[in-house]
């Protein structure tokens, strides 16, 4: 596959495979016709989907997420969690931002300030606080993100993998630590692009309903 732009999902386990069908359906409903790649252990039958077989047993398939730069077949990728539902064709505007020269496009998490890294295990949270110069980072939500394979992005993913491998759990604190060593050109979006009831992407955060 040599497509330039495409959409990537990661689905492991019955629940995720059920969710991904609904997620892809939401894309088609708003008229998105870009190629879609599904990274999973075994192919499932969904029309016009490109399968990327990959074995994984990590927490929430986070190891696969930090390998996306390698596993995605696209030069420009929109990664979506399987519990996202696309609500608007405006989702494609993220690729225009990449075309303008940005490495990564994503939205902040709704959890900021005192709630930054609230979901991170205490040991990793403390280590992250010790490691970061910036003790007041903005937490980014990596369940919806566009990236293109620039040297900076590849370096960032490399650092992200290194940081994630230290605790092998959630990916967000590892991303912020990685950005300290491998900064990238990040265009920030508002919550419409990635939040519960977002007008462009409705992210169910593990509580998806049919």
């Amino acid at each position: 596959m040599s497509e330039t732009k495409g959409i990537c999902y990661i689905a492991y386990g019955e629940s995720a495979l059920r969710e991904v069908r609904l997620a892809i359906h939401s894309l088609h409903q708003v008229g998105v016709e870009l190629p879609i790649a599904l990274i999973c252990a075994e192919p499932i039958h969904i029309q016009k989907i490109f399968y990327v077989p990959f074995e994984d047993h990590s927490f929430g398939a986070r190891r696969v997420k930090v390998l996306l730069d390698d596993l995605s077949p696209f030069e420009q990728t929109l990664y979506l969690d399987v519990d996202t539902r696309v609500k608007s064709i405006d989702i494609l505007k993220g690729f225009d931002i990449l075309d303008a020269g940005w490495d990564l496009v994503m939205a902040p998490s709704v959890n900021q300030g005192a709630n930054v890294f609230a979901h991170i295990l205490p040991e990793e949270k403390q280590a992250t606080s010790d490691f970061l110069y910036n003790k007041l980072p903005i937490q980014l939500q990596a369940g919806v993100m566009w990236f293109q394979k620039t040297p900076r992005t590849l370096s960032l993913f490399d650092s992200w993998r290194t940081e994630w491998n230290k605790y092998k759990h959630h990916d967000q604190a590892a991303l912020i630590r990685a950005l300290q060593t491998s900064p990238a050109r990040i265009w920030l979006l508002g919550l419409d692009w990635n939040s519960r009831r977002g007008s462009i992407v409705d992210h169910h955060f593990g509580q998806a309903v049919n």
Partner: protein
Amino acid sequence: MALKWVRCIQTFSRHSELGRRATHYKGDWLQLRNMEIKQRLAAGQIEDPTTVFQPELFNSGECGIVTSNKPIDVSEYSYNLPITYSEHYVQEYQYTLVWNSGPLRTALLPISFELLKSWDMLVPLEGFSVLANTIGSVEDRKRTEDVIGDLRVPVYNVEQMFIRRCSDTAQFMDAWEKEQEQENSKVDKRLSFLRTLFVNPLLMLALPPSWISGSHV
């Protein structure tokens, strides 16, 4: 006796040597004398200064403030940083704080300059819910949307910007200034900043709104 930089591990309030009461939050940096360091170490309020990050860069002479504010209270804010008074950004220092208005969280200055070693520019967000579609005039928003494609993006508080001197930031600041010269005074410079940024991508680190406001959010 020289002052030493220390980092808070608990929030506490104290009177500065100028007699002003200030609250220092967990993670903040401040300068203390040895006697107070011993007291606060014993109280578990600060880290051992021999083990924490020493902001050598901050004292290197490469950092400075460019401001249009006249006069500013140098003793309170500058930490002996050189100050250039100018209406426009000038590439006087390798690492510059462009400070137009708003309270300065001085405890965050050393960290900010340190972060500029890896980032081109640091600018606080206006707020997580302050989006480009909620500010400026209809005309200004339309003009911005034509450039950046979608206004559902957060805006930056351009009253305080940390800038590393390099060709990318020079080009950016030049382009932004030219864009502002073409506009009338009613145009929101936060929108012109977004327009300029979009077409001049930078290693931009967005800082939380609390970097300016002092509210511990």
